C-alpha cells in the first residue's frame, strides 16, 4: 500500500465523511455507522454487485449505483435510504422470498439469518408477489455440513470464500436464470467431493440457513465470521 493515501471527502445522507480513494461507498458508510443493506457483499471477499440491495442514489446521476463496487469520489453526495430506494429493496427481498422455500419458523438460522433480519429492518410484513414453491434438493452427503437449496439465495459468498480464501474452488454455479443453483465440483454430491477440504468457511459466510452444520436444529445455527477479516488482514500484512 502506498504510504500517501489520497483522501476523498464526500457526503453520505447529508453527513460529511471521508475515505481513501480506493474505498467504496459501502466501506466508508460502514466506517461511519451508516447502514446500507446488502446480502452478497461481505468484507474480505471480492464484490460482485449482484444482490442490488446496496443501490444508492448519487446526486447528478440518473442511475442507481451499487455501493459495494462504486468507489468514492471527491464531492459525491450519496443518499442511502430514500423512500424510492427502500421501496426497491423491499421488492427485491420479497422476490427472494418468493423464489424458493424460505420457511423461517422451521429454519436452522431462524433468528440469525441476514435475509430475515433485513426483511424486518425494511419493514416487510408480508410478500405481495405470489410464491413460486419450487421443488429443491437437500444434500446432506457431507459428513459435517448440509446444503439446503430451498434456502439458497445465490449470493455466491460460498463460491467466493472457497475460491478466494480457501483456494479450493469446490463451489460453483450451474444453470441460468431462475434455474441457476450452486453446485459442488461438477454437480456431484458434496460428500464425495475431492476438492472440498471440509474447512466449513462456506457454511460460516452463508447469510441464510442454506448451509449449516449437521446436528443443528431450528434456530440453533449461529454463523461465526471472525475468521474472515482476520485472514484477510494477515494476508495483507504478509504482502
Amino acid at each position, binding site marked *: 500500500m502506498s504510504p500517501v493515501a489520497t483522501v476523498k471527502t464526500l457526503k453520505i445522507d447529508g453527513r460529511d465523511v471521508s475515505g481513501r480513494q480506493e474505498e467504496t461507498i459501502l466501506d466508508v458508510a460502514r466506517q461511519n455507522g451508516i447502514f446500507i443493506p446488502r446480502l452478497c457483499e461481505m468484507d474480505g471477499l471480492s464484490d460482485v454487485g449482484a444482490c442490488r440491495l446496496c443501490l444508492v442514489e448519487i446526486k447528478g446521476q440518473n442511475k442507481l449505483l451499487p455501493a459495494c463496487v462504486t468507489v468514492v469520489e471527491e464531492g459525491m453526495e450519496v443518499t442511502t435510504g430514500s423512500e424510492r430506494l427502500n421501496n426497491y429493496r423491499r421488492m427485491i427481498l420479497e422476490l427472494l422470498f418468493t423464489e424458493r*422455500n424460505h*420457511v423461517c419458523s*422451521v429454519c436452522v438460522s431462524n433468528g440469525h439469518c441476514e435475509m*430475515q433480519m433485513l426483511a*424486518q429492518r425494511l419493514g416487510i*410484513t408480508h410478500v405481495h408477489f405470489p410464491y413460486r414453491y419450487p421443488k*429443491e434438493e437437500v444434500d446432506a452427503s457431507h459428513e459435517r455440513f448440509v446444503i439446503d437449496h430451498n434456502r439458497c439465495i445465490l449470493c455466491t459468498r460460498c463460491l467466493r470464500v472457497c475460491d478466494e480464501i480457501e483456494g479450493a474452488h469446490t463451489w460453483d454455479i450451474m444453470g441460468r436464470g431462475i434455474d441457476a443453483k450452486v453446485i459442488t465440483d461438477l454437480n456431484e454430491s458434496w460428500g464425495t467431493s475431492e476438492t472440498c477440504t471440509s474447512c466449513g468457511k462456506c457454511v460460516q459466510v452463508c447469510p441464510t440457513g442454506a448451509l449449516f452444520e449437521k446436528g443443528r436444529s431450528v434456530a440453533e445455527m449461529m454463523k461465526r465470521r471472525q475468521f474472515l477479516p482476520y485472514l484477510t488482514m494477515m494476508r495483507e500484512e504478509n504482502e
Partner: protein
Amino acid sequence: MSKKKIATVWLDGCSGCHMSFLDMDERLLALAGAADLVYSPLVDAKEFPPDVDVTLVEGAVSSEEDLRKINMIRERTKILVSLGDCAVTANVPGMRNPFGTKAVYDRAYRENVTFDPGVPDQVVPALLPTSRPVHEFVKVDIYIPGCPPSADNIYYAVTELLEGRTPDLTLKTRFGS
C-alpha cells in the same frame, strides 16, 4: 356506544396463534370490556355474524372449505388481520406445495394407514392444489407475522385497531419470530 365485535378464525394452522391469543392472560379481561368476541374456536357461536369489526385469521388457505370461509369472512369483516406466519406466508402448511396434493394424500391416508386405507370423499374437504397465504385470495388489512406472534403483539395490534388506529408491527415482529 355499542361494543366492537371481534372474531378469530382458524384455517390451516396449528392453533399456536390461538394459544398465543390466550396467552394475553388477564389482558383478555380488559379486551372483553372493549369488545365482544362474536365468533372464534374459543367460543360457541356456530355462524359467522354479518358485521364484524376485526377478524384475526390464523392459518393458510389450503382447502376448498378454507377458501369458502375466507371469502365469506372477508365480506362480513371491516378489518381483516392475517395472524401469524401461516396466514401471512403459508409457512408450514405451504411446505407441501412443491410436492403436490397426491403426495400429501398418499402419506396421510394410504401409506401410514393399516385399516382401510384410502382418501375420504366425505366430511374432509378437498385440498387446493397449493396451500397459500390469505392475501393471495382476499384483501388483507393488517399483517402480524410470527410463529406464533407474541401475546404482547396481538394485544397491541387488537387494542390499536379497536381504538381506530393502525398498528405498526414492523419492528416488533418478523417472519419466524
